[in-house]
């Protein structure tokens, strides 16, 4: 309880609190100000009645205006979908390979595809589409199954080596650990290294070349240039999905690799599949 004091100069009672010797006058508030405050309080109460506000045990009060952010977002989305309906139907009808000839539609497809990509594909391929070990980099010019827009679209629609889609791209490399001796694997790895590196053991590689011709060339080609029909990677270029060092290659040959991608056909709309294919194609590696 503070002591009541009166300010000598003004004759007004002070609040009794002193800050560095300065005391506050306990002047009344302007009437309009006070009424504004009361009005604001009434407004606030009315507002919390009208709109969802008070947290309850299971959910909040709903308000009496029937207003909800979720419904608003749904309405906004519907509006945008309405606005884009024309573009979407064009996209679904278009021949995607010729899309760059229609700049507006192309721009729309890339923008939409970017959104689809970030929501569905970035988990494996990275937000920038640079991939990771075992997940292909979509920015470079190396394609296991083909990099023109139709090939990309097929991959997106049906996926890779999955069991859900009968049309999924499928191939399987045997685990050569059960077929070849470890020394033979070492030799064939040295041969593979020789295809793209300048630094290798020529004698060992020559042995490996024989093993390669017998076991690997049927899929990877005599020169190791790969075969797109089977998704067999080019072994002579600078790009390795799992790594190009001898140790990794040894593991790859011994146990084989089996990357899987789900089919997106059943999950995405037709326009989304087309859009995301156009987007991926536009990232710099499209053929």
């Amino acid at each position, binding site marked *: *309880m503070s002591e*009541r004091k009166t300010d000598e100069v003004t004759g007004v*009672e002070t609040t009794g609190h002193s800050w560095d010797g300065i005391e506050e006058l*306990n*002047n*009344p*508030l*302007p*009437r*309009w*100000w*006070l*009424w504004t405050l009361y009005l604001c309080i009434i407004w606030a109460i009315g507002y919390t009645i009208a709109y969802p506000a008070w947290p309850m045990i299971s959910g909040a009060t709903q308000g009496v205006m029937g207003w909800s952010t979720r419904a608003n977002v749904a309405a906004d989305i519907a509006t945008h979908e309405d606005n884009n309906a024309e573009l979407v139907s064009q996209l679904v009808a278009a021949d995607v390979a010729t899309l*760059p000839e229609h700049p507006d539609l*192309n721009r729309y497809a890339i923008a939409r595809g970017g959104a689809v990509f970030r929501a569905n594909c970035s988990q494996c391929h*990275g*937000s*920038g589409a*640079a991939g990771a070990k075992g997940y292909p*980099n979509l*920015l*470079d*010019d*190396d394609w296991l199954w083909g990099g023109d827009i139709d090939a990309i679209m097929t991959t997106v629609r049906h996926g890779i080596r999955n069991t859900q889609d009968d049309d999924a791209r499928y191939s399987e490399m045997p685990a050569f650990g059960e077929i070849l001796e470890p020394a033979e694997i070492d030799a064939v790895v040295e041969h593979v290294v020789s295809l793209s590196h300048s630094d290798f053991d020529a004698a060992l590689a020559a042995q490996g070349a024989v093993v390669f011709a017998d076991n690997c060339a049927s899929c990877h080609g005599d020169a190791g240039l790969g075969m797109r029909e089977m998704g067999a990677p*080019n072994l002579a*270029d*600078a*790009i390795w999905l799992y790594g190009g060092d001898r140790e990794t290659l040894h593991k790859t040959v011994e146990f084989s690799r089996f990357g899987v991608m789900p089919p997106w056909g059943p999950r995405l709309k037709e326009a989304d599949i087309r859009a995301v294919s156009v987007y991926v194609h*536009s990232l*710099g590696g499209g053929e």
Partner: protein
Amino acid sequence: MTSQPDQPLYAARVPIFPRRVNGFFRRFKWWIMAITLGIYYLTPWLRWDRGASLPDQAVLIDLANRRFYFLWIEIWPHEFYFVAGLLIMAGLGLFLFTSALGRVWCGYTCPQTVWTDLFLLVERWIEGDRNARLRLHKASWSLHKWRLRLTKWVVWLVISVATGGAWVFYFTDAPTLLRDLLSFDAHPVAYTTIAILTATTFIFGGFLREQVCIYMCPWPRIQAAMMDPDTITVAYRDWRGEPRGKGNAKTRKAAEAQEAVVAAQAAGAGAARYAGTPYPGKGTQPATPPALDTVSDKGDCIDCMACVNVCPMGIDIRNGQQMECITCALCIDACDDVMARIGKPRGLIDYLALSDEPAERAGAAPKPLWRHILRPRTILYTAMWLLVGVGLLYALFIRSDIELTVSPVRNPTFVVLSDGNVRNIYDVRLRNKAGEARTFRLSLTSDDLLQIGLEGRETLSVTVPADSTVLQRVYVTARADDPAAQEDTTALRLWVEDVSAQIRASKATTFNGRGTK
């Protein structure tokens, strides 16, 4: 908690009925009002020919297209630092003026002051001067009172609508908008804006008035940090005026008689009201120390209350410096008028620096005006203000007609291609500020070997439509055995060139290699 039982929770506003005043500062304020209101209402109607595809309004804030046009200057969103710079200059200018001349902004150019002044003018014109208004205020609601009040409100409303209306013209082509507004075709946002600004003008200028300055505006509280004893402000020379009133009976009577004449004039015809006898203009130079009234040994103030009656803030400046005072100088005019009539030198209330008080009290000459104004603080503010201003001017003149921004894509920082080449991606935004489409050629300079390519294009040329931007993905590739592919980073410069107009622009950026070297 026991507080004084008779202390009310709230206090009603004490209505203020400022009396008409004549004088140098009042006339000066009329001029300022005419000029500021003129600028506000007329600016959107100035035309400026920018060519066919651009708007021909001299000052236009084109929010839809995100452009700001000011005479020959066109500001794009990425150049918003110009606006930020102007705001900083406005802030520094306010600091400068406040530290030198106190609340000149409040007293002369603040919209709240200007519109309140205008509304008061209307009020005086319709309801008469102070005494008449006081009487009307106390009178019961008669037909006469209703008629005056309604007339006043209607005129206020017209001014308010014009105020809100003028604002929206800054945001779109004024003649078109006026036509649309009149035919009820304009966008609802325009009508809403006008309605809100009309309401605020009407309420702030007509009813809230000084309360906006006292309770709503933060400025009176901030200004204290910018003023010091050398600041020129409105003050009462109490050493000259006190003890007031008593003992000056003769002179006081004379002044009161004059007051009555003024009041009678005020009650007369409206048009002649402001044609009072003018007297020579006065600067803000402090008057020479007054010769004290040796006959009565009383001060010069005759307690006629003229200074209080004219004050739009309803305060008595003789009580010393007060937060409410907006330094509008009307009390100076009022008191000078009285001083002239009782044959005393002017300047009992005056623009003066409080630091001069001891000198003046002792009868010595005050410091000259320039020594009050030229202080380290004001010089510093001026220097800062000039610095920002020169910087902005410099930025304005080095602007080019073409521009580019380069944002290197950093996710991932580089891509290795199947032949071992290393590629970087850049998002290049090309801006064409000209009134016609232009074709830009992109090129590259770097000490190390690099090649450039454009996404989705065969050539290195991009055509940008008039007055717009294009975002172009650019690939820069280093061959596997080039130094750039092996180094960590390599400096390079991207050039944009308009071959036909012979202008070019460039941006420096870096190239990320494999970092194997």
